[in-house]
């Protein structure tokens, strides 16, 4: 079950922070930015999946991000799994 403070906004903040730790400038990280623009590759997606598991206890497989092009789409994948609980 997600904690009371888990909201779409809090998930977005956590994801943006995680992406910034991986490398891209914080200012470049928006919902519209593409993973390609941010130089996010499959290794980064594994790290993001780890963060999701550690933060919300939801197990994501890198394959869950298949077809995902933008940060917003990645966020939707994560939110759909986290907020449904």
């Amino acid at each position, binding site marked *: 079950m997600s904690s009371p403070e888990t909201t779409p906004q809090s998930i977005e903040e956590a994801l943006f922070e995680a992406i910034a730790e991986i*490398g891209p400038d914080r200012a470049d990280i928006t919902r519209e930015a593409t993973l390609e623009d941010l130089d996010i590759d499959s*290794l980064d997606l594994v790290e993001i999946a780890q963060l999701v598991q550690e933060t919300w206890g939801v197990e994501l497989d890198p394959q869950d991000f298949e077809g995902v092009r933008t940060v917003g789409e990645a966020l939707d994948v994560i939110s759909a799994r986290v907020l449904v609980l």
Partner: protein
Amino acid sequence: MRRGVAITGVGAVTPLGVGAEALIDRWVAGASGIEAGLGRCARFDPRQTLTRKQLHRSDRFTQLALTAATEALAGAGWADELPYPPERIGCIVGSGVGGVETLTRQQATLQARGVDACSPLGIPMMMANAASGAIAMRYGITGPNWCVASACAAGAHAIGTAVRLVQAGEVDAIVTGGAEAGIDPLVVAAFARMRATSRTGISRPFDARRDGFVLGEGAGMLVLEEAEAARARGAEPLGRLLGYGATADAYHLTAPEPTGSGPARAMALALGEAGVDAEDVDYVNAHGTATPLNDRVETAAIKRVFGPAAAALPVSSLKSAIGHLLGASGAVEAVATVLALRRRIAPPTLNWAAAEEGLDLDYVPVRAKPLRAAAHARRAVGISNSFGFGGHNAVLCIAA
């Protein structure tokens, strides 16, 4: 006639500072980079040369390598544009223990938090070939690329391997050297348990009181170019790599063969390829670890090769000033050797004060001294020795 090999750029990150000039300036001045018994690169800030992404994805040894490579390529005039087709440029980098800090951190993560918490970057950060791969990616150089692993001789073997690739015509130019970031509790403990490292924390090569090496970290990089190609593009070489010799003791896991026959053969091979007589060598940059065995055997080997000429030959150890950089040491010492030869000066062996019977070469104690070549209008020639656990011996002959 073999293709000649010109050194057109050098770079170093060492306990004496960031940059090859800091290394040679401070060593010649007799400064020490060793603090509290370790040779850390305290002034090194990888954020100066690496992007956040590179920082996130690299072990410290790769960060040291990239920083030294950046300086070497800039010095060669390669910063903006590669002077040869990328597939004609190689990169060979040595390392003794690779990304050992990443390895031990990931081991701790595994034990504390389980498989799922282990980083997907663990392998690509710890692999010993990460440094040569990262340099290639940064500059888009696509020729032969690999890592050489031969413990404390890796840096010298990497350079020797690079020389051979240039000579064979497989590349027109090559980025080569060594990198190490082994100041990790596991490595410190393991060397201490085999009594290889100094209990006093003082690096005293060739001194009667020596009690083992001081562990250090750093990186040294060189840009080598086929001599005619370098000339054709108007590069001004810092020096030339004249010869390389590599042998094995085939004797013991860690102890050198007592007569020094393996190192002596490597020195003779390097001089033979260079076409340099023993009497014409101006300087020996010793392996000089300050272990009781190495310094005795290395002295014996030098005497075997140089005969009567050994008595007047300046022999000094950079490890007295920065400690033992393991797989980076041979590369950092090659950088220091070419710069010392250019200045016509033998940098000093710090902390040397007490002679031991049989260890009677000119170890250039405490103060730098001019090379004989300084008095004559001719090139200066030196050799740089590197020997590794496992009985690996590598010697480079350099002129400037």
